[in-house]
């Protein structure tokens, strides 16, 4: 009896295998076709920072854009450095960050199509209610930092090279202090995002530097007060930059541009100004359309 020499035993077992294999191939092909068909993307991928997300602004704002224009926006919130890098690589088509020096470099290197200011918020110094460094009510953050230094009052830093952290380091440099958490017990680094850092400061009774938006979101659950605000050097400026289509031709160029222009339009600016958290307005629109027709 000569049958095929290659027939396998356990036919039902083998069938399960073949089904699994076919299913795997099917799923991969389906996934590929889905993503390959989205060239160019029907949505806009925005790279932004965690503070824009944590303040709740984006979740509030983006649905309006989608309703107004029919263009979907997906955002990735990462550190400023990575957000700009995603723009360089073309993995994101529009960037919304608050790091003017880095933004200018980005533009100078030719990665951005145009750069429009959108809004500003500010950094505030917050601290425990008992205020051991005696800085409550000051309007000069540099002075406040020098008092914290003098009192060796506990201070919690982001320690993560975020925009906030960079601002904090600049303030320390103005009072002539180089943070050394290894040798100074009163200075600690959380290495985490703003919300977690605020939580830590609240628990340990320490001071920290925060953007006002995130602080307002969490204020009710924190044992901290705003000590210093409205200090001009602590103003935090956000810009929107669609990436340069010459560098990355196959991104959603039109969508990115539409988004950037919408943010600085009267509609977008009005919505930004209307956004409140805990009764306060964290972002102040100061937009200008520098992305001309």
């Amino acid at each position: 009896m000569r049958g095929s020499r290659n027939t396998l035993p356990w036919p039902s077992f083998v069938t399960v295998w073949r089904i699994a294999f076919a299913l795997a191939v099917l799923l991969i092909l389906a996934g590929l076709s889905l993503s390959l068909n989205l060239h160019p993307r029907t949505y806009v991928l925005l790279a932004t920072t965690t503070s824009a997300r944590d303040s709740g602004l984006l979740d509030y704002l983006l649905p309006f854009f989608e309703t107004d224009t029919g263009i979907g926006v997906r955002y990735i919130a990462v550190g400023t450095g990575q957000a700009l890098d995603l723009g360089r690589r073309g993995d994101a088509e529009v960037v919304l960050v608050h790091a003017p020096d880095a933004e200018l470099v980005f533009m100078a290197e030719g990665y951005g199509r145009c750069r429009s200011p959108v809004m500003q918020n500010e950094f505030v110094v917050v601290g425990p209610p008992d205020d051991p460094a005696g800085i409550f009510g000051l309007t000069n953050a540099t002075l406040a930092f020098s008092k914290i230094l003098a009192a060796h009052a506990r201070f919690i830093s982001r320690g993560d090279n975020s925009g906030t952290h960079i601002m904090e380091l600049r303030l320390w440099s103005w009072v002539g202090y180089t943070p050394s958490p290894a040798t100074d017990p009163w200075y600690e680094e959380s290495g985490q995002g703003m919300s977690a850092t605020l939580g830590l400061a609240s628990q340990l009774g320490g001071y920290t530097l925060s953007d006002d938006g995130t602080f307002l979101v969490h204020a009710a659950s924190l044992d901290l007060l705003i000590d210093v605000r409205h200090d001009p050097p602590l103003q935090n400026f956000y810009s929107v930059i669609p990436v340069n289509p010459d560098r990355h031709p196959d991104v959603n160029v039109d969508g990115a541009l539409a988004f950037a222009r919408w943010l600085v339009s009267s509609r977008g600016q009005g919505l930004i100004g209307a956004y409140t958290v805990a009764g306060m307005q964290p972002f102040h629109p100061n937009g200008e359309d520098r992305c001309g027709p």
Partner: protein
Amino acid sequence: MTAPIALEGVHKSFGPKDVLRGLDADIPAGEIFAIVGPSGVGKTTTLRLLDLLLPLDQGRILFGGRPCAAGSPEALEHRRRMAMVMQNPTVFRATAFENVAYGLWIRGVPEAEIHGRVFAALDFVGLLDAAKEKADHLSGGEQQRIAFARAAVLGPEVLLLDEFTANLDPANVRLLEGAALRFRKETGCTVVIVTHNLFQAKRLANRVAFLLDGRFVEIAPAAEFFETPSRPETRAFLTGEMAY
């Protein structure tokens, strides 16, 4: 059609140990050929050489006058015309039906035909009701019957039985011996049976071969072998006086 088997000067060593040192035998088609001898003398090795599972060191094995070597391209085809039932059955982790169907699946027999043949084989060993049972839940005797059905269902031209009723109770021994004889009667296959049970050899065999020191010291028709053995070694072995 079953062909005669011949062993010519077969030598086999395992490392420094020379197990077989020149086996010669001619087994006509359809014969029941028993191999007896002391433990460890090489009976199982002989069967495995016949089944082309092991390569031999010297000599030849011929099927129908044509030599065949283990590992050669024709070996697989020849092996598929033989079936071996071993001591201490190893059943697959599956139902009795699937166990018996295994050899048929391997040979590409169509599913419809497999059904009928498997049930017939299970019936042959009296296990028709157990078809859907998990084989590893069955008793030792039942597992051995499955092993036999598994071999028989393939319609082998040569049936190799290696102590296939060892460790079984008398009822199962009888049942399996009966199945082997019936099978041989119905298909005319050749049977080579290795056994340490002299009574079994007496019951079943046409001819008996006594393996000692790597050679067949005596080969004779069963009646003659047991009643009037010609060699002194054979006599010593049969009476239990041989020391080894």
